């Protein structure tokens, strides 16, 4: 973050004009404005990041309608909890990404969602199977999930459980009947590969 702000003109002091759509903020001023509850900066944040965050949510909550509910909650949380964002611990997007992922996992683990999934699995027939698999395919094709798909099976399963389903390493060790050390090593290795894929 530091080098990015240094490389830019100190444009913070001139107020961004509403008429122009080309207003840009560097991350530092965006954070400052958000913490000051500036509505325009929030609008900018939404316009620039809602799509990326929606994709994150969709990778956890496949249902588009539910995912859009979660995304709404994500932005409301960002607006209300921006105070708790600490730039020393990472970039703004990283923080938002984790807000989105956590809320999405919360949704999937909620009782309401679990019940709705049970109810949906009751009807049988071609119709449901086709649409179900179609949704699944499209979700597998977006964002990190697409890259995770390139991983070896033994890595892919663990990243899926850890990142997209939110299980702790200990829980995964139990689920997969693997030693905790093995789970940790495999996840670390998988993450290093992921890093190289998205570079």
């Amino acid at each position, binding site marked *: *973050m*530091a080098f990015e702000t240094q490389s830019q003109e100190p444009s913070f002091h001139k107020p961004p004009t*509403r008429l122009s759509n080309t207003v840009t903020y560097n991350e530092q001023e965006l954070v400052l404005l958000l913490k000051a509850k500036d*509505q*325009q900066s*929030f*609008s900018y944040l*939404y316009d*620039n*990041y*809602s*799509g*990326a*965050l*929606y*994709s*994150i949510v*969709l990778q956890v909550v496949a249902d*588009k309608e539910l995912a*859009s509910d979660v*995304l*709404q909650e994500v*932005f*409301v949380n960002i*607006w*209300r909890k921006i105070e708790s964002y600490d730039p*020393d*611990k*990472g*970039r703004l*997007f*990283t923080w938002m*990404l*984790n807000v989105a*992922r*956590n809320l999405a996992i919360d949704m999937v683990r909620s009782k309401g969602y679990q019940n709705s999934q049970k109810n949906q699995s009751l009807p049988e027939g071609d119709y449901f199977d086709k649409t179900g698999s179609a949704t699944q395919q499209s979700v597998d094709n*977006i*964002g*990190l999930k*697409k890259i995770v798909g390139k991983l070896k099976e033994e890595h892919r399963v663990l990243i899926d459980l*850890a*990142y997209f389903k939110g299980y*702790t*390493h200990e829980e995964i060790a139990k689920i997969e009947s693997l030693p905790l050390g093995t789970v940790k090593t495999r*996840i*670390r*290795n998988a*993450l*290093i590969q*992921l*890093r190289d894929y*998205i*570079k």
Partner: protein
Amino acid sequence: MNIQEYISSGIVESYVLGLASNEERLEFEQVCATNAELRQAREAFEISLEQHALANAVPVPAELKQKIWNQINPGIEGATVVSIQADKKQQPLAPVRSISFSKLLAAASVILLVGSTLLNFYFYNQYKLSVAKLDELIASNQQMAISNTATQAKLQQYEIALNIIKDTNMAVVAMKGQPIAPQSATTVYWNKQTKDVYLLVNGLPQPAAGKQYQLWAIVDGVPVDAGMLNMNETNGLVKMKNIPKAQAFAITLENAGGSKTPTMPIYVVGKT
């Protein structure tokens, strides 16, 4: 620990993606605070993650922005972030709901009106009854207040009389009926200290019109006027004139207003 090894251990990715344990997280933040190389590695991964996510953005439903805005700013409609399409989905729904709701409302209103009218009649009658009863109560209350005042006044009068009689300086002169009215009797209470004279009428015939009883103090054989008796005030002790010295008291019936010396026979008399 070798920082290069640490950086390439996967901790950076694990931390940024939120997969590190609490312990790992705290350790990472500690090292980051002092180690620029680690910070750069973290930022490099964060940026590539962000760019990857931006490149893989998925179109968001159009109405969502307005929904979020409404949730954040309830009450302020269409503030700065309005998108025009936002309301499209809700519009067809609104009239249907409002019709059924207004019908329901109308039905409820009619029921309420009928009920309220009936209640009005009932309550009006109750009200009229109550007002009549209240008037009665107020009247009887006033009556009681008046009689209470009278009673109080009488009681006060008796208390005063009792206190006069109780006085240890009081000499009591019983006056007996004379041949002209043998049934008559009066009593003089004569305070030896203050010389005040009070007359108690135990019984005297009603005087004829234009006539009035007069009390006399007999001082060394001479009758001295001790005051007129008003028959309207004979219920208690009647204060008469102050008499410093007397051997006896007597009452005669004189013309109204009294005489200088007794002109008529004595009705009652008593020695001090």
